């Protein structure tokens, strides 16, 4: 698993990465009530705002962690945003992305570094 400073996690699945937000992030955000996902096939650039999430408290954005193409989105999450609260690292994933420059992952944190950041 890789982690970004924006509290996203990335898990390799073949040559694509599954992306979600961490439990720390969902705890801070509170109960999610709305998720707007990108379209499959979208080409995105690192730090583009590609997902809108709304919690009971406020709206926020999720940024593209790398350059690449969206290969799949979690439609179950759009139907039931609370999945991100109940299973942040599993059923609450947001989208899958195929990086165009996998070296962008090199700078990301591992679990220990992420835990250090949020502690």
């Amino acid at each position, binding site marked *: 698993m890789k982690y970004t400073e924006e509290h996203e996690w990335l898990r390799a699945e073949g040559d694509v990465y599954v992306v979600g937000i961490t439990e720390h992030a969902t705890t801070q955000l509170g109960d999610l009530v709305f998720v707007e996902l990108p379209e499959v096939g979208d080409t995105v650039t690192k730090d583009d705002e590609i997902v809108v999430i709304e919690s*009971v408290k406020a709206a926020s954005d999720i940024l593209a962690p790398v350059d690449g193409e969206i290969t799949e989105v979690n439609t179950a999450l759009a139907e039931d945003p609370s999945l991100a609260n109940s299973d942040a690292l599993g059923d609450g994933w947001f989208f899958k992305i195929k990086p165009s420059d996998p070296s962008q992952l090199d700078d990301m944190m591992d679990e220990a570094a992420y835990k250090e950041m949020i502690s």
Partner: protein
Amino acid sequence: MADLQKTPLHALHLSLGAKMVPFAGYEMPVQYPLGVMKEHLHTRAKAGLFDVSHMGQVIVKGDSYAAAALGLETLIPVDVADLAEDRQRYGFFTNDAGGIEDDLMLANRGDHVFVVVNAACKAADIERMKAALEPDLTVTEITDRALLALQGPASEAVLSAIDPRAAEMTFMDVATLDLNGVSAWVSRSGYTGEDGFEISIPAADAESIATALLAHADVEPIGLGARDSLRLEAGLCLYGHDIDETTSPVAGALTWAIQKVRRPGGARAGGFPGAEAIFQEMENGTARKRVGLLPEGRAPMREGVMLYADETATEAIGSITSGGFGPTVGGPVAMGYVTSDYAAIGTQVYGELRGKRQPLKVAKLPFTPANFKR
């Protein structure tokens, strides 16, 4: 949060794991470990306990109840004088332009009027009352009492287990109850759309009473986050957002709170700030009106979202003043102001959200049926 005031329940909030935030000069719990969504649903299903000690509690007293009531009627356009003993009523202070300076609850307590005002406005409210009413009347802020709200369908069972007389009260009744030996000023009211009680108790006893109420299996502590979504679903105004010094009771859809006796032709018509402006609006209508708004999509539309007649119009017809997700409704809910041409129930309008126009319908308030004990 060093400059913030603390309520008598501050230590209890911390021990319950509350997340504290600054609110109206106080450090207040926005949520507990249960979280806003579950706190909201729990209140509608069973009972929630809220700390509202930040609100202002004021006693207005004169030679008689009538003297105090008639004094307040010079500031408030509601019928205070005819309020029966041990009954409570909603009202508001108005200004010379007919705008609302604060909304409040007032109760006939036999020899005085007990007034509860919003935390953010309480200093100005007390100043206003003192300036207008003293020395004929005395205006005393009660600073040594906490205020709790117990809200939800199980509230009666919870409170009457401590003092059975709670069960005899109906909506907007007021009584002094004995809660484990503590003298509590209780009203059967609240701000969630649910049955419930507001309970004023000496600050020194606040923690023990709150703890006793929380000991009931049906009671959970509830923070400001759920308080806001509960009152929004109930169609109730948040002062400073849905009503303020620029909104009249007519525009704010609160004319129901102005009884006949204070209206033109009534025995005590007018005599409050802005009466002329308010009567003129009651007669001729207002440019804008407060309405309920139901976003048709799933995205919440919050305060500040601008409203338009259609997808391309350049001039806004209004804006949202409160909005968010309604856990009981199961979708987004909002209220706001629109020009009166667009205020009819069912009218479609558009809100601009992240650069896109999204449809909403003007909807009847409340969004969830009121569940009071009449």
